[in-house]
């Protein structure tokens, strides 16, 4: 009887603690969302006005005063293209490594090693290379640079997925007369589709959120959103309401994406790290 009661008490405490946690994570974001819908004057008001009539002015402003549309486009193109290339090349490489134990081991360690490289080690030589090639401030430069982390990451994640698929399946296909490529595209890829989806989303997130390379390698032409919002503040003093709107724009796609693919996302992250 008492055991049951203490159990129930513990349950209530757990729910209270979790609610507090959830609020700590959620409230700062909600406050930013709220401020992004206020007028400029209200955004500065302390004590804050709790009930506001929402306005879309800030969102309109950042797209007209700033070339924010262009930066959004840059982020989208660079993230999408680098992800597509990484998925395409990474899937093939991961399949090769997963199916060939011999000689694959060194590659496995090397690929895991790339995940430990601090970006600061890479950014200086990459900057000099890109400068020499006259490609500073271009999409190509960013896409190629992002492959340096997203391709190994993709290979690492997908190796696990491919290893989980029984070898017999693609071997059976080859015995029936298909080539390696056919066995890969017709048998293995469809089976690994959820994993590839998860890995692709993670790679997109990494590129979308990347800052250091974009900061160093771009000017105003190929600038991505993280660099754009970091600059907004220094350029125009503290334009609170607009800054909030810009922040919402940068996190919205990521959060929406995560809601749709939560199951895959969790699989991908735990696969990549625990294995």
């Amino acid at each position, binding site marked *: 009887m008492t055991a049951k009661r203490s159990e129930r008490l513990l349950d209530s405490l*757990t729910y209270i603690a979790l609610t507090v946690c959830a609020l700590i994570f959620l409230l700062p*974001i909600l406050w930013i969302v709220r401020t992004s819908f206020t007028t400029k004057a209200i955004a500065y008001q302390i004590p804050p006005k709790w009930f506001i009539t929402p306005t879309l002015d800030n969102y309109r402003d950042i797209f007209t005063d700033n070339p924010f549309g262009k930066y959004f486009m840059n982020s989208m193109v660079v993230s999408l293209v680098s992800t597509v290339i990484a998925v395409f090349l990474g899937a093939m490489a991961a399949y090769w490594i997963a199916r060939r134990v011999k000689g694959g081991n060194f590659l496995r360690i090397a690929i895991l090693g790339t995940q430990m490289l601090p970006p600061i080690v890479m950014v200086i030589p990459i900057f000099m290379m890109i400068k020499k090639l006259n490609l500073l401030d271009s999409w190509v430069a960013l896409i190629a640079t992002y492959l340096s982390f997203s391709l*190994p990451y993709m290979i690492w994640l997908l190796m696990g997925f491919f290893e989980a698929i029984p070898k017999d399946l693609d071997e059976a296909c080859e015995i029936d007369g298909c080539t390696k490529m056919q066995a890969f595209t017709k048998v293995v890829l469809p089976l690994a589709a959820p994993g590839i989806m998860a890995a692709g989303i993670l790679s997109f997130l990494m590129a979308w959120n990347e800052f250091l390379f974009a900061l160093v390698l771009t000017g105003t032409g190929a600038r991505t959103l993280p660099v754009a919002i970091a600059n907004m503040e220094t350029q125009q003093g503290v334009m609170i309401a607009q800054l909030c709107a810009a922040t919402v724009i940068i*996190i919205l796609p990521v959060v929406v994406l995560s*809601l749709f693919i939560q199951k895959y996302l969790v699989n991908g992250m735990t696969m990549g790290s*625990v294995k």
Partner: protein
Amino acid sequence: MLSVKRKQFLIFIVPSLLVLAVTVLYPLVYSFIMSFTSSSLKVRGFGDFVGLDNYIKAFKDAYFIKSGWTTGLFTVIVVTLEFVFGLSVALMLNRIKRGKKLFFTIIIVPMLITPVAVGLIWRLLLHPDLGIVNYLLGVVGLEGQAWLGDAKLAMMTVVLIDIWHQVPFMILLLLAGLVSLPGEPYEAATIDGASRLQTFWNVTLPLMKETIIVAVLFRVITAIKTYDLIYVLTKGGPGTTTEVISYHIYKQAYTFLNTGYSSAMSYLLLLVIMLLSVVFVRLGRGKAQAR
């Protein structure tokens, strides 16, 4: 000796190897060579070969050493607190049955936000005059602080913000480990009459050992690399109180243009990260054998 089939199979790996050779290997070698030269953005080409001078300079450079300590301190505090907090939340999430998905969905959100946005969000909230945090403190009768401008508080503030951003990752990994634990040891513990705390110490923790090591290693490595958050929050200041190693190297390269020296420092950072990884891997193995 290669059969036709194996040759065809090479098509799978060769494109990736080429891309990695250009985007990873070449820059690494380039910067390694650069670390032995007086290379600078002010002059063309590599500059002169100076042997180990850059490395020796780094060990005598008080600012570099200090940024190393700052990074170490930041990493230890952040990872320890994130581990304790993350494990508590993971245990709680593992316990409840209703609402688990909702809590989980909310809790992982900060992790997905780019560090730049995280920094900006908190700068606005913590603004000494215009921020909501100081206002709310005022409401309950506490004095507001210059959270990021005060040399005594800046580091603590950065640590707390980093925890807000990164603890979801710890929760995610540890929860994944908890969910996949086998049920039998717990049944045995209940039969033996073990208390809740005993079960946690003697069953949960040992079974979670590998997950914990991986999660901690992962966070240690990312914490040592921290750069974006510092750039947005404090730019290393006030003074150099929050100047972590990555930011210090960045400053050397792009403010003082010393690319040779920066490369040497970044290789030292890389060396430390590699050593730490080896230690953790050994740790993981040693414990597994002892069990």
